[in-house]
C-alpha cells in the first residue's frame, strides 16, 4: 500500500480543487441536460474520502471529485482532465449521475405543502408525525386499472397497523403542520407488521392518490429508470423529508434486525439492506426520511428506507422486490 495522505493535506488539496472547478458555473447547468466533458460543466461536488471507498479498511484518503458523467480520457481536452494527484494527494473521480446537487439537493420546501407534490417530501397518516413519499406505483398484473398510489412505510401511511383502510393521508404530515385540508391520498393496504416475534419482510403500505396531487418524479432524482436488486458496495441515493438528497453505500444485504417501534412493540426483520452515508452527505438518513425510495446511480429503484440507528450513520431498508411482491404493485 502506498503512503497515506494526512487528512489536513487532503483537505488543503480539496480546497485548491474547489477554486478550480466549483466556480458556480456547474450549478447553472440544467439538471437533466447532458454535461460536456469539461470540468465546469461536469464536476458537481468535491469531498474527502477513501480512494477505494468500498474497502473501508485500506484507508487511503483521497479528494473525491463527483462528476455528472465519466468520460473516456480521450474525449477530454488535455487541459480539462482532472489530475491524478493534487499537491501529492490522490484524486478519485466518481460518477453521480444527473442529479441536481450533492447537499440538500432540492429547491422544494420538503416539509411544507406542495401541489402537486413530488415524491421525496413530507407525508403522513393523520395519527403519525411525518415520513416521506417514496414513489408512485400501480397495481401489478390484471388488477391494474390505472389507479395511482403513493408508496411509503406501514408506520408512515398506516400508523404501524393502528389504522383502517380509507384513512386520510396528509401532505405535509401532521408534525409539519398538515391537517385534514391537506389530504392527498387514502390508505389502501399495508403489509401487516408482526410484533409477536415472527419474521417481518417489509414495512410498507400504499395509499390511493387524489387526482392531480402527486407527481411521478422524485425530488432532485427525477423519473425512475426501472429497478435493480440491491447488492453490497454499490453507491445509492435517496431524497427524504429530513435530510434531502444524500448518497451512501450498501454494506450488507443480509441484515436480520430488531426494530423498536416503541408503544407498538419490537419487530424482527430478515434480510434488510444496510446503507452508510458517503461524505459530504452523512448521515444517509434521519427521523422523517422513512419511506424514501433508494435508487442506484442510474436512477434504478432498489430499496425502501424504513429504519436506522439514532446514534450512528446506519440506515436500513427493505429490498424493493420484496416490497413490490408483498403489496402486489409495480413501479410506473
Amino acid at each position, binding site marked *: 500500500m502506498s503512503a497515506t495522505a494526512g487528512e489536513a493535506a487532503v483537505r488543503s488539496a480539496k480546497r485548491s480543487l474547489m477554486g478550480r472547478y466549483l466556480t458556480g458555473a456547474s450549478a447553472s447547468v440544467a439538471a437533466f441536460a447532458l454535461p460536456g466533458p469539461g470540468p465546469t460543466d461536469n464536476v458537481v461536488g468535491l469531498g474527502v474520502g477513501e480512494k477505494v471507498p468500498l474497502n473501508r479498511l485500506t484507508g487511503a484518503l483521497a479528494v473525491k471529485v463527483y462528476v455528472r458523467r465519466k468520460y473516456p480520457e480521450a474525449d477530454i481536452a488535455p487541459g480539462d482532465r482532472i489530475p491524478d494527484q493534487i499537491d501529492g494527494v490522490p484524486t478519485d473521480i466518481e460518477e453521480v449521475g444527473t442529479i441536481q446537487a450533492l447537499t440538500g439537493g432540492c429547491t422544494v420546501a420538503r416539509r411544507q405543502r406542495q401541489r402537486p407534490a413530488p415524491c421525496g417530501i413530507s407525508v403522513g397518516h393523520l395519527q403519525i*408525525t411525518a415520513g416521506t413519499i417514496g414513489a408512485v406505483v400501480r397495481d401489478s398484473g390484471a388488477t391494474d386499472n390505472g389507479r395511482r398510489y403513493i408508496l411509503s*412505510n406501514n408506520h408512515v401511511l398506516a400508523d404501524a397497523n393502528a389504522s383502517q383502510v380509507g384513512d386520510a393521508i396528509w401532505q405535509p404530515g*401532521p408534525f409539519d403542520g398538515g391537517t385534514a385540508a391537506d389530504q392527498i391520498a387514502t390508505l389502501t393496504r399495508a403489509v401487516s407488521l408482526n410484533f409477536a416475534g415472527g419474521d417481518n419482510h417489509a414495512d410498507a403500505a400504499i395509499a390511493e392518490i387524489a387526482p392531480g396531487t402527486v407527481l411521478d418524479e422524485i425530488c432532485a432524482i427525477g423519473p425512475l429508470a426501472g429497478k435493480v436488486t440491491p447488492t453490497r458496495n454499490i453507491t445509492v441515493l435517496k431524497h427524504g423529508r429530513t435530510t434531502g438528497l444524500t448518497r451512501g453505500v450498501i*454494506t450488507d444485504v443480509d441484515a436480520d434486525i430488531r426494530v*423498536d417501534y416503541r408503544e407498538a412493540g419490537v419487530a424482527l426483520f430478515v434480510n434488510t439492506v444496510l446503507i452508510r452515508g458517503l461524505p459530504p452527505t452523512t448521515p444517509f438518513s434521519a427521523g*422523517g426520511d422513512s419511506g424514501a425510495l433508494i435508487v442506484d446511480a442510474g436512477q434504478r429503484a432498489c430499496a425502501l428506507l424504513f429504519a436506522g440507528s439514532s446514534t450512528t450513520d446506519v440506515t436500513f431498508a427493505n429490498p424493493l422486490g420484496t416490497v413490490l411482491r408483498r403489496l402486489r404493485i409495480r413501479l410506473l
Partner: protein
Amino acid sequence: MVSKRQTAKRGRTIREAKRGLSRRLLAQPGVSGVGIGEVAGDERIVVYLAEDTPAVRALVPGEADGYPVAVEVIGPVVPRVVADAAPYRPSAAHD
C-alpha cells in the same frame, strides 16, 4: 479467511450460518442485528450491537459454523419517522 465461494466445515453457507446466529441473538435487547459484511473483500458475519457492554459482548461467539464473526456497535434501531414526544396537533383555525 473464508472466501465467498467456500462453505465452512459443517457445510452450511454463510447465509445459513448468519440465520442460525440471528435466530439466537435477536431475542436479546442488546443486539440490534446480525448480517453479512465485507472486510477487504472477504465476507464475514457481523453482529450489530445496540449497546456495548461486557454482558452483550459475551453473547457473541468468535465464529459461527466456521465463519468468523465481527462485532460493530451501531446503537438501537428505530423506525425513521419523525420522533417527537409531543407531535403537532392541528389548531382550531385549521378545522
